[in-house]
């Protein structure tokens, strides 16, 4: 059923941001187009790197690369199946294509092409996709709530969900040097800079303890690591110690570090992810802890199993429980 028209008057409503808008909060430190600039730097070192997109160069920061290396950039038109099939062909000829699109289109429209021509054939293609999880207010057409589940289920592909501009900058040369298919979620535009404060260093396949705490352990990835760190600062005010274990590599999962941290006694363990509650980091961690015989009190902060609403992102993040304040409230509730 369609909702009734909003009544006039009442409190001012936020409006949906343009697709190209930054997800940064007002006043937050950011870096512009970290992926585009990092790819240019990597491409200067490695002549095999190419850039390809399906009509979303400007919306994935690949235009920075296209401007710098016009002869190494391929515009494939609004045709994601072609994009990934052609990338497979270029990789088979020895090149390292970085293909960009939106996460919804790579995961939902072009899945079989990635499955067959890239993952099964083992081609060295890097798939870098903007608008992961709930980072668009356009509704389900642009909200890739299930991309991690889909790519986790695909054999022979590395899956990454970086947290901020610093991590994107560090991950690009690493995945360029890694041989094999990679799917990386992307934050684009003016991307928040968060992890510099913690002396963070990205390592492929490694979970990193960003901060420690005695009462709560949040195991998080991507945007939700940023939110968890913000929530931890709020909880500090109430003397609630919250550790944050950041897991940028969803597959293969760093089970050793996750088990070690989750096995520490007396902490509420929460997995937080910008993804549907089905098939993402939460279920991966829960399964592994069960297999390892580690049974902490376990909670999950994730997007619901439903088609989410259109609207302004701050409103949606509050409604679906992934804003800083929503996270703080839920954790306090769980601690009782």
């Amino acid at each position: 059923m369609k909702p009734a028209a909003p009544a006039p008057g009442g409190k001012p409503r936020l409006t949906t941001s343009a697709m190209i808008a930054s997800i940064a909060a007002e006043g937050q430190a950011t870096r512009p187009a970290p992926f585009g600039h990092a790819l240019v730097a990597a491409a200067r070192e490695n002549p095999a790197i190419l850039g390809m997109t399906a009509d979303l160069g400007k919306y994935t920061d690949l235009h920075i690369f296209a401007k710098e290396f016009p002869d190494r950039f391929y515009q494939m038109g609004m045709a994601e199946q072609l994009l990934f099939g052609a990338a497979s062909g270029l990789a088979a000829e020895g090149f390292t294509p970085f293909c960009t699109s939106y996460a919804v289109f790579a995961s939902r429209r072009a899945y079989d092409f990635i499955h067959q021509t890239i993952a099964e054939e083992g081609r060295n293609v890097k798939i870098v996709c903007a608008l992961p999880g709930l980072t668009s207010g356009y509704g389900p057409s642009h909200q890739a709530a299930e991309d991690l589940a889909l790519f986790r289920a695909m054999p022979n592909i590395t899956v990454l969900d970086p947290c901020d501009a610093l991590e994107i900058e560090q991950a690009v040369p690493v995945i360029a040097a890694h041989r094999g298919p990679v799917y990386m979620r992307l934050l684009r535009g003016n991307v928040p800079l968060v992890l510099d404060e913690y002396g963070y260093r990205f390592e492929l396949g490694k979970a990193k303890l960003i901060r420690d705490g005695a009462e709560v352990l949040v195991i998080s990835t991507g945007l939700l690591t940023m939110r968890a760190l913000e929530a931890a600062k709020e909880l500090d005010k109430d003397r609630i110690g919250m550790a944050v274990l950041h897991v940028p590599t969803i597959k293969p999962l760093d089970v050793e570090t996750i088990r070690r941290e989750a096995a520490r006694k007396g902490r509420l363990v929460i997995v937080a992810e910008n993804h549907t509650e089905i098939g993402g980091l939460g279920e991966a961690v829960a399964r592994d802890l069960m297999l390892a015989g580690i049974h902490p009190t376990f909670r999950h902060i994730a997007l619901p199993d439903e088609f989410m609403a259109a609207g302004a992102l701050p409103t949606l993040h509050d409604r679906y429980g992934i804003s800083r304040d929503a996270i703080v409230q839920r954790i306090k509730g769980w601690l009782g």
Partner: protein
Amino acid sequence: METGGAMAPLPNKTLADRAYFIRRNAVRMGEVQGQGYIAQALDIADVLAVAYFHAMRYRPDDPDWEGRDRFLLSNGHYAIALYAALIEAGILPESEIESYGSDESRLPMSGMAQYTPGMEMSGGSLGLGLSIAVGKCLGLKRKGSDSRVYTLFSDGELDEGSVWEAIMSAAHYKLDNLIAIVDINNMQADGPSTQMMGFEPLKEKLDAFGWFTQRIDGNDLGAVIAAFDAAKSHPEPKPRMIIADTLMGKGVPFLEARDKSHFIRVDAHEWQLALQALEAGRTA
């Protein structure tokens, strides 16, 4: 024929001989399995004979040789036909015929890149080949290579939207190093291809999409040779398409006459009869 390799083809074998041995190898594989896409293998044997023994450059003892022409089999279920050609070309040993479709075989029922020397892609999920071909053609041009990409696909694949994405992009990028062959045997899984989804007038469509297009009888060796020659020598910077109308079961009269279906029935005793029919057709 350019082979560029150490093992030149036997000069005393004609292209008709090559087509005969490709058909024979395929029937023998069908007999091993007791089934297979044999009617398709028989219809495309003439095209493969011309591709592998007239048009393409490769080294039988070095299937990954950088200077080779690439052959992409999009319709993976035609693997039985391509294996038959790769055996005739000396890329695969004849002894592996016995392993076709068996456990641990390098010759699975549906062609896959990581299983078989000379198999450049994993087909089977139909509509993939042309997109990969576009990427390979772009890659070869980047490398300054004069190698070509040949890709075979089936008329049923014309139903797939991705095929038309690739058709548009190949013309957009002026991929004159691409030679695509579409097998019009007018049969797909649920029935005659033209009845499943009308794709005619195909030549006119492809012309309009910016391809150099030829339509031929794909079982007329002379016409196939001329089409490959014209595709290679055509001066315009366009991708090249050969529309090959073929007859399922070609070369085995009782299969040519059988009610057509995607997966044609062959009884156990008929494989030997098929080999005899091929032999009789060859000497006739």
